[in-house]
C-alpha cells in the first residue's frame, strides 16, 4: 500500500534522508527505530507531505505523493491535492497538538466537520464512538488542559481515526509522556494493530516494538541500516550499529 | 530638469534647515528622557507601597496621564502656567509635558518588570538566607532589568516621536521646520517625506542600539 523508493531529502546543504526505500502492505505494522537525527520523523512527515522531498518517490496505493514525474520532470502537487491525500493518512504527534480552545469531542469532530462537511450531529456520534474506543467517553466535554498527557494523546488518536484513514502514522507518540501513562496509549495502538490498521510507528519503546511490529526497520544517519522480522532484528543476531542503539536505549533488553 | 532632479536639488537646499530642526528634536528628547526615567523611578516606590492611599494616588496619576492626550497636557502647561504667573519657555513646557506623561508610563513598565520575576525567585533567595533588601538587589533587580529593557526601549522611541507635538506650541523642532518650509515656499509632500526619513533614521538607529544593548546585557546575566 505504501511504497517508498530512494527517498531523498535535504535541508539546504544538510542531507537528512539519503535514499530510503521500503514498502508497507495493507494491514502490516512497521516499526521504525533509530537514534535522534536519523531522519525517521522526517521520513514520516514526507509520507503525508507535511514536508517536501527532493528525490525518489512515495506512492500510496499507487498514487504518487507530493510530486508527479511527467515528461517535463518533477511537478509539485498543489496544496489542494496534498490536502486530499492527507485525509487518507492519519498522523499522531509526539506533542499531541490538540486544539486547546476546543473540547475533546470537538477536537475529534474537527476533521469530519470541517474537511468532509459531515453534519455536526452525525460527526458527534462518530466522535463519541471513537472516544469510547480509546477509553475516554467520560472526558468528551473536557478541554485538553484538564486531561493528562496519556488522555490527550488518546484523544489525538481518536481525532486522527475520525477521518477513517487508510494508514496511521505515529511519530514518537509516547516520548513526551510520563512512564505510567505510556501503557494506556500503547494499548490503544495495539488494539488498532489487531483490527488490521496499516501503521508506521516511530518509537523508542523497544518492548512494544517487538510486541506489535510485523516488521522492524532500523534507520541511522538518513538510511535504512537493517530491516526484518522483530525476532531476528532484536535478537543478538544484528549489526553493530543496531546493537549500540539497543544498548543505549534499553540497556537490559538484549540481556532479557 | 525633470521632477526627480528638481526635487533632489530642492531638498538638498533645505537640508541645513531640516538638520537644525532635527537637532532640536534630539535636544528635546535628550532633555525629556532622563527626566521621564527619573520620574518613573521616583513614582515606583509609591506605586508599590503598602499604604493604600499612597498607591491609589499614584495609580490615579498614571490613569490621568494614560487617558488624556499629551497634546492637551502640553497646552495646559503652556497656556495655563502664565495664568498662574509662570512664564516658562516653549521648550521647557514641551519637555515638562513629555516627561510628566512618559514618567507615568515608565513606572508601569518598571513595575511590570519587577512583578514578573516570579514569587519563587524571591522565596529561593530568602531560603538561602538573604534578607529582603539583598534579595531585591542581587536577585530581583538584575533579572527585572533584563525584562524591562525591551519595553523601555520601545517606550523611549515613542517618547522621541512624541516630541513632534511641541511643534504645536511653536518649538522649531523637525516637524515644525517642515511645516514652515512648506508655508514659505512652493514645496509640498516631498518636505514631509524628508522629515519622515529623518525620524525613521533616528528611530531605527535607536531601535537597533537598544536591541544590541539587550543582547549584551543578556550575555552578562
Amino acid at each position, binding site marked *: 500500500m505504501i511504497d517508498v523508493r530512494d527517498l531523498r531529502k535535504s535541508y539546504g546543504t544538510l542531507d537528512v534522508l539519503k535514499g530510503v526505500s521500503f514498502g508497507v502492505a495493507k494491514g502490516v505494522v512497521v516499526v521504525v527505530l533509530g537514534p535522534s537525527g536519523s531522519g525517521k520523523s522526517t521520513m514520516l512527515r514526507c509520507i503525508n507531505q507535511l514536508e517536501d522531498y527532493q528525490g525518489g518517490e512515495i506512492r500510496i496505493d499507487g498514487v504518487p505523493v507530493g510530486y508527479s514525474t511527467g515528461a517535463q520532470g518533477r511537478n509539485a502537487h498543489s496544496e489542494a491535492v496534498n490536502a486530499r491525500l492527507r485525509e487518507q493518512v492519519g498522523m499522531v504527534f509526539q506533542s499531541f497538538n490538540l486544539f486547546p480552545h476546543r473540547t475533546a469531542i470537538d477536537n475529534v469532530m474537527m476533521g469530519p466537520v470541517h474537511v468532509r462537511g459531515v453534519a455536526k450531529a452525525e460527526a458527534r456520534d462518530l466522535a463519541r464512538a471513537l472516544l469510547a474506543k480509546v477509553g475516554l467517553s467520560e472526558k468528551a466535554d473536557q478541554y485538553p488542559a484538564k486531561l493528562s498527557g496519556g488522555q490527550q494523546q488518546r484523544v489525538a488518536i481518536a481525532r486522527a481515526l475520525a477521518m477513517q484513514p487508510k494508514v496511521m502514522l505515529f511519530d514518537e507518540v509516547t516520548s513526551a509522556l510520563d512512564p505510567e501513562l505510556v501503557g494506556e496509549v500503547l494499548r490503544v495502538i495495539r488494539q488498532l494493530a489487531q483490527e488490521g490498521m496499516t501503521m508506521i510507528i516511530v518509537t523508542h519503546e523497544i518492548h512494544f516494538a517487538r510486541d506489535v511490529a510485523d516488521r522492524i526497520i532500523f534507520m541511522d544517519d538518513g538510511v535504512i541500516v537493517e530491516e526484518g522480522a522483530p525476532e531476528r532484528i532484536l535478537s543478538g543476531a544484528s549489526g553493530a550499529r543496531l546493537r549500540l542503539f539497543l544498548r543505549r536505549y534499553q540497556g537490559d533488553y538484549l540481556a532479557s | 530638469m525633470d521632477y526627480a532632479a528638481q526635487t533632489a536639488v530642492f531638498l538638498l537646499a533645505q537640508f541645513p534647515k531640516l538638520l537644525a530642526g532635527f537637532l532640536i528634536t534630539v535636544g528635546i528628547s535628550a532633555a525629556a528622557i532622563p527626566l521621564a526615567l527619573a520620574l518613573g523611578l521616583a513614582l515606583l516606590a509609591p506605586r508599590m507601597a503598602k499604604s493604600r492611599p499612597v498607591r491609589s494616588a499614584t495609580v490615579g496619576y498614571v490613569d490621568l496621564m494614560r487617558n488624556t492626550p499629551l497634546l*492637551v497636557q502640553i497646552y495646559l502647561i503652556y497656556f495655563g502656567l502664565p495664568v498662574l504667573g509662570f512664564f516658562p519657555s516653549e521648550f521647557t513646557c514641551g519637555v515638562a509635558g513629555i516627561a510628566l506623561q512618559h514618567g507615568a508610563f515608565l513606572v508601569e513598565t518598571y513595575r511590570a518588570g519587577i512583578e514578573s520575576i516570579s514569587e519563587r525567585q524571591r522565596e529561593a533567595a530568602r531560603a538561602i538566607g538573604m534578607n529582603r533588601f539583598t534579595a531585591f538587589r542581587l536577585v530581583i533587580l538584575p533579572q527585572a532589568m533584563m525584562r524591562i529593557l525591551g519595553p523601555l526601549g520601545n517606550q523611549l522611541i515613542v517618547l522621541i516621536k512624541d516630541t513632534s507635538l511641541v511643534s504645536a506650541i511653536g518649538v522649531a523642532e523637525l516637524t515644525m521646520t517642515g511645516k514652515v518650509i512648506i508655508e514659505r515656499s512652493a514645496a509640498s509632500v516631498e518636505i514631509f517625506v524628508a522629515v519622515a526619513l529623518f525620524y525613521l533614521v533616528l528611530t531605527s538607529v535607536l531601535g537597533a542600539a537598544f536591541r544590541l544593548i539587550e543582547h549584551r546585557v543578556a550575555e552578562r546575566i
Partner: protein
Amino acid sequence: MFNVLLGNLPYLLQGALVTLWLSVAVVGLGTLLGVGMGILATTRSRVAQTVVTGYIFVLRGIPVLVVMFLGYYAFPAFGLRVNIYVAVGLAQIVYLGAFVAEITRSAILSIPAGQIAAARSLGMRRPAILRQVILPQATRIAIAPLLNSALTAVKQTSYASVVGVWELTYAAREIVERTLAAFQIFIGVMAIYFLICYPLSLAARWSENRLSFSH
C-alpha cells in the same frame, strides 16, 4: 471659578462629538485594515510579507503627526481636493493599521506550529485552519494589545487639531484664544477626554488580566 468652562461647554461638547465620530471611524477602519494586513503577512507569499513588514517598519518609526501632515499635503499634491477630515482621517487609519498589523501578525505566529501540523494532517486547508484553529486563539491573545492601540488612536485624534482639523482640542484652543481662561478650559477638556478614554482603558486592563490565564 469654572464659569468660562461652563459657559462654553456646549461648544466643547460639539467638539467632543466630532472627536467621537473620528475615533470610531479611525479605530474601526484602522483595525480592519491592520488585521487584514497582519493576516496577509502570515501567508507564504514573499511579496506580501515584505510589503507588510516594510509598511509596519516605516509607519511605526515616524510620528503620527508627520503622517497626518503627509495626508494633508498629499492629496492636493496629486491635484485632488479632499475633505480635511477624510485626508487626516485616512492618515490616522493607515497609521493605526501598522500597529494592528504587527499585533495581529505576532498573535497568529504565536500559535504553536504543531497545531497547524495537526490540522494539516487531518486534511484541513489554509482557510479552514485560519478560521477554526488560528483566529479563535489569536483573537484572545490580541484583544488586550488591540484595545490599547485603540486607546492610543483615540487620544491621537487630538493631534489632528495641529493640522487644522476641527475637533475637541481645536475647539478648546479657539475658546482659550478668545477668553484666555486656559486653565479651566484645558482641565475641562482633559476631563472630557478622560470620560471618553477611561472605559477603553478599563476594558484593556480587564482583558489583560482575564485573558492571560487560559491555555
